[in-house]
């Protein structure tokens, strides 16, 4: 399976969501699974949560993966309390993620 990663900046919200969404869709539209590198990200807004879930649903509709890597504890907590976490696979490192996808 072809996999490409996309690196998020410090925040994912209404100011940059279009750019991020386009970037992820560009990967998926090539037929590649996408890994979102969130190691630098310390805030995801309501808009951002929807970018993640939308990406996951588009990936699933294409038979592809969309995984989240390196999410910090506070962002993970936000996903947890709002229930968005239940839709995703989380990995601590890119290696872990790639190995899980390839297996």
């Amino acid at each position, binding site marked *: 399976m072809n996999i490409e990663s996309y690196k998020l900046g410090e925040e994912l919200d*209404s100011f940059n969501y279009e750019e991020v969404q386009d970037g992820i869709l560009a990967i998926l539209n090539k037929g590649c699974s996408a890994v979102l590198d969130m190691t630098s990200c310390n805030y995801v807004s*309501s808009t951002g*949560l*929807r970018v993640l879930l939308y990406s996951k649903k588009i990936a699933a509709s294409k038979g592809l993966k969309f995984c989240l890597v390196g999410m910090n504890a506070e962002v993970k907590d*936000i996903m947890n*309390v709002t*229930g*968005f976490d239940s*839709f995703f696979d989380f990995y601590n490192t890119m290696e872990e993620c790639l190995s899980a996808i390839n297996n």
Partner: protein
Amino acid sequence: MHRVDLFPTHEYQGLKLRPGRPYPFGATVVGNMVNFSVYSRYATDCTLVLFHNREEKPFIEIPFFKEFRLGNVFSMIIFNLDYENIEYGFRMDGPFQPEEGHRFDKSKILLDPYAKLIAGRDVWGQEPNWDSLYQYRARVVFDDFDWEDDLPLETPVNDLIIYEMHVRNFTCGSAANVKHPGTFAGIIEKIPYLKELGVNCVELMPIHEFDEFENSRCSPIDGRQLYNLWGYSNVGFFAPKAAYASSGRFGMQVDELKNLVKKLHANGIEVILDVVFNHTAEGNEQGPYISYRGIDNKTYYMLTPDGYYFNFSGCGNTLNCNNPNVRDMIVESLRYWVTDYHIDGFRFDLAAILGRDQNGNPMSNPPLLESLAHDPILGKTKLIAEAWDAGGLYQVGSFPSWGRWAEWNGKFRDSMRRFLKSDEQVLADVKERIIGSPDLYASQKRGIKASVNFVTAHDGFTLMDLVSYNSKHNEANGEDNRDGENHNNSWNCGWEGECDDAGINRLRHQQVKNAITLLMVSQGIPMVLSGDEMGNSQQGNNNAYCQDNEIAWLDWNNLKKNADIFRYFKQIIKFRRLHKVLRYDEHLSHSDYLGLGYPDFSWHGVKAWQPESGYNNLTAAFMLNGQYTVTESEGVPDDFIYVAMNMHWEMHGFELPQLPQGMAWHIFANTGMDAPEDIFEPGEEPIIDNQHEVLLGPRSIIILVGRKK
């Protein structure tokens, strides 16, 4: 096909606009547009005020042009708004003539009555900027939560076991041991506990946005800050309380509450909201402008002929529930909570007010109540009335129901409490309560399902305090102990308040078990007050509406301290859920109409089949025949269940009715025994040696199960 009406027609200070759609009211996202719509019958002019999040000054104020008005509705569409980062309000112009009912003031920025997300009180107890021009700030909501296959559960109403709880009280206390105390997320962490207890419905005390700082002050006892903890004072009827969400500081309370409902549903637990449509947080003439007063005072409030506020709620004002437009707002609000939050039911605070006309007079067929009873979206939603108000209207048994409305049965509470304290004048009434209050609900054919039974609720003593205090102790509320109910029908078992007398404490535990037993073996929908299952105390405070501290918070250490009480609650709830014969929805016939040799229900006394045989009106017994639970289409016969109650202070023997051949009496519970002999595992009850008589100790209840040997 592309729509041709997606282009701006106006531009105002750089924002692109077009006339909006009057309906729905509020702010609605449509593609890259947001439609703002607000109704006011008497306003002459309206301006939309937009802020960037949390900023004091608006970045733009847009007048509703003439072409943006239709009838009495102002509406406009704004294109390409970054709506995650804006807050909006309205300025309304119109007459200020209080004697005519009008209080327009265009210097005020007003909250949208239909706001679905409200910022401004995002973190509980965080002092707001009181100088801010706009305190409770409407935001535009994301309404695309992914529910997957969730829907309201539609549990048959007679199968419900309701747990009345408060979001903060439930998990703020010591030893709650949750990551997010006092929040929706905190409740999610306690779902395994709720399942272990066995309840299948939580009734959340108000979760609509309110201001915990309303009427805040210091306790005269210890100087601690007192808050509006309970929240019976609405700021908005469409928005969840932000500070009840751990993510409220990020404006994510909508998703967090929806996640709670989804998770509870996944565990078979319904959600009922306690809704307060009788008044708002704006108070009387001296109160603040939040929304309704400035949007359309004469529409939203019941006013005296000279323009003052009627006060049937005891809270300063009364929502004008049977004004057609207010009625629509209430219906819209309830539909919204069912549609968007998958809420299973509502308990209406001081619901008698909903049946008063615009002059405050009770109506025989109140249009609002009729609308709700027949509403298509609310068609399977539980509707429960607190069938009285603060203006003296008491409608328990007579609340207009159209076969849809249930009621908090206040008479159940009063009778059972008196029986528990050995009042010799109440047995006849107790018997009515046990069989689902046919005296109240049979004549209108409302059935047993109209009766929500309870011994304790948020108003009044907790169950442990009911058996520990003769009088209320509300000094910490700062009202010289004047607030709260004076007639509690409580008995302290021999000492006022906490004590270390083993005999008194044993009796208190026994009385708690008696109370939950009466509740769980009575026909009707039982409601348990959160914390009673662990013997929670409020130190005698019977009106802890302002005690955001250990007085009102559940002390989870009690789970261990009162382990026998928790175990008893758990088992008796399980017993009720196992036995259909305890959960009829229609009233019983008291006759052998199937020719089975036994009636569906029979009263007994200390002698079998002789209900009149007893002591001082303090002993009684009854038997339910499980064979009657079989319907033509389904089911296997339930067991026989026999309950003997001795509220006398002496021991009495009860002669047992004889069972059909091959069956024997097994003992499920005896509140007079110490744990673990007080209650057994449902389905595994031991057979009793003497099949002809049982001995009941003073103030105890025995439950027997008759089934095959």
